């Protein structure tokens, strides 16, 4: 019996050892993140006011604001979402449901997954070459949005495919057995069943796009911009205009980068304040993803 006691003691020790080790590892991430956020809040909190959100950049740190940056970020995100989401979902549907499974599609699949890991600056260089120089589209909101769109396209494709693949095969068979075409199965069953996964993947991809600065610097986002893009909405018919697509732009991370690289302490406080806003936007988007996941998990069950 003595040996059994010893064995149990030894193994329990091992058990506890790894529990503690795991806890410490988790703590590292949490603590670093908390320190970062607390530090940002301490530095930036005082600068964060209404004036800060509604002012143009300025040479004087006290009167500088992030108006151009957050409006630019939102406009770019709109272009990104409108291009990457439909493209990504359509490509995923094609690959998952229509494409024949052969070496070519496996090759395409592997490379799409690889694309998700390509450094973002490479996408910037591709856009610079393709959209700015080759197609001559200019260094504007539209090209910025497209660049980020291509950046997150693989993420959306992978997320959508996972979501579609997780729909049980019984649902497909039942619909086909009733005489449905592929598209009817996709439209009436696969998409509604996987909307949760698609929305989550898309929002997380978008929040990643919002934090990107490198590819936009490459395609020519303006660092010091004192002109707002024209409003997409207008008072008279047809109430929308698309001039904003062709306007120069700046985005939040670039504004932060610009302020951080200045010597004055006051600008660093502004950078901290802008970072708080950026983190807030990202967390809000992630919160939306969680909410959607929660809503649809209750609704769709099998």
């Amino acid at each position, binding site marked *: 019996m003595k040996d059994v006691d010893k064995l149990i003691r030894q193994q329990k020790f091992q058990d506890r050892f790894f529990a503690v080790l795991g806890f410490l590892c988790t703590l590292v991430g949490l603590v670093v993140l908390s320190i970062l956020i607390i530090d940002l809040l301490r530095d930036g909190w005082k600068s964060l006011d209404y004036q800060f959100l509604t002012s143009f950049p300025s040479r004087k740190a006290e009167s500088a604001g992030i108006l151009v940056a957050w409006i630019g970020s939102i406009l770019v995100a709109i272009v990104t979402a409108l291009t990457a989401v439909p493209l990504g979902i359509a490509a995923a549907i094609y690959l998952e449901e229509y494409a*024949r*499974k052969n070496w070519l599609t496996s090759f395409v699949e592997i490379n799409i997954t690889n694309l998700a890991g390509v450094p973002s600056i490479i996408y910037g260089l591709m856009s610079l070459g393709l959209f700015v120089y080759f197609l001559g589209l200019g260094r504007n909101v539209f090209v910025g949005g497209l660049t980020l769109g291509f950046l997150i396209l693989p993420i959306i494709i992978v997320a959508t495919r996972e979501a579609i693949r997780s729909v*049980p095969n*019984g*649902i497909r*068979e*039942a*619909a*086909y*057995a*009733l*005489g*449905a*075409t592929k598209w*009817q199965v996709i439209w*009436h*069953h696969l998409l*509604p*069943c996987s909307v949760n996964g698609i929305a989550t993947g898309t929002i997380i991809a978008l929040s990643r796009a919002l934090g990107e600065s490198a590819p936009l610097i490459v395609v020519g986002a303006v660092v010091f911009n004192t002109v707002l893009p024209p409003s997409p909405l207008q008072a008279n018919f047809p109430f929308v205009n698309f001039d904003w697509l062709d306007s120069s732009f700046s985005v939040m991370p670039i504004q932060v980068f610009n302020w951080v690289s200045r010597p004055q302490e006051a600008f660093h406080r502004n950078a901290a304040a802008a970072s708080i806003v950026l983190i807030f936007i990202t967390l809000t988007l992630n919160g939306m993803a969680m909410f959607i996941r929660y809503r649809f998990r209750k*609704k*769709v*069950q*099998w």
Partner: protein
Amino acid sequence: MVDATPSLKVQVRQLRVFYGENEAIKGVDIPVYANRITALIGPSGCGKTTLLRCFNRMHDFQKNVRYEGDIVLYPSEKNLLSRDVDPMEVRLLTGMVFQKPNPFPKSIFENVAFGLRLRGMSNRQELSERVEKALIGSALWDDVKDRLGRPATELSGGQQQRLCIARALATEPEVLLLDEPTSAMDPISTSRIEDVIFELKDRMTIVIVTHNMQQAARISDYTAFMYRGQLIEFRATEEIFQRPSEELTKSYLGGSFG
């Protein structure tokens, strides 16, 4: 129980099915009579489900599956396996209920109405009538009439399976294909579903795959016993169970293997 001259509804002729190199069904001929229940029995892997899924071309989704032979539908004499016949058309003529209940994650009403909508029906009044009729037909109406808008996934397993039967019935298929519809059910649900199936044969032709021999004996008019991809014996159910003519059938029904 069996009339003297039942008319032929479907004739399976020299059917061969290949999964890649492997021949799963090796030349089978089975007649299916109109308004009768035909049971396909046999040990696991004998090809009975494979055969059933040929009737509505469910194999078409898998690559590496190849058919030879005919499945001719009467009175139109249409060969369901012909390349010229669109699998969609075959599925519009047939209905299928699967082994595991697979309701759509939608409302009870929409589950039953889906097949009708696919056939272009959109009039709410007409849809409601057909849905009600189908749910009465599958003995589910009394359970769900007050909650047609509730998600189908809230129903119990047995109710879900009856919902799947209603979904297949709503379109009034000529042939109803049942793939071990009660294998995941408790005895009470099983007997309710058997009652439903038995009632249905006045309205359509039914082919049922079952691994439960008692079930075949209870509800079917004809029984086909399959073994290793071949049809060993096809006869009226009473005869096959009382006086099997093949040694293999006798030992399977007697429980010496399976």
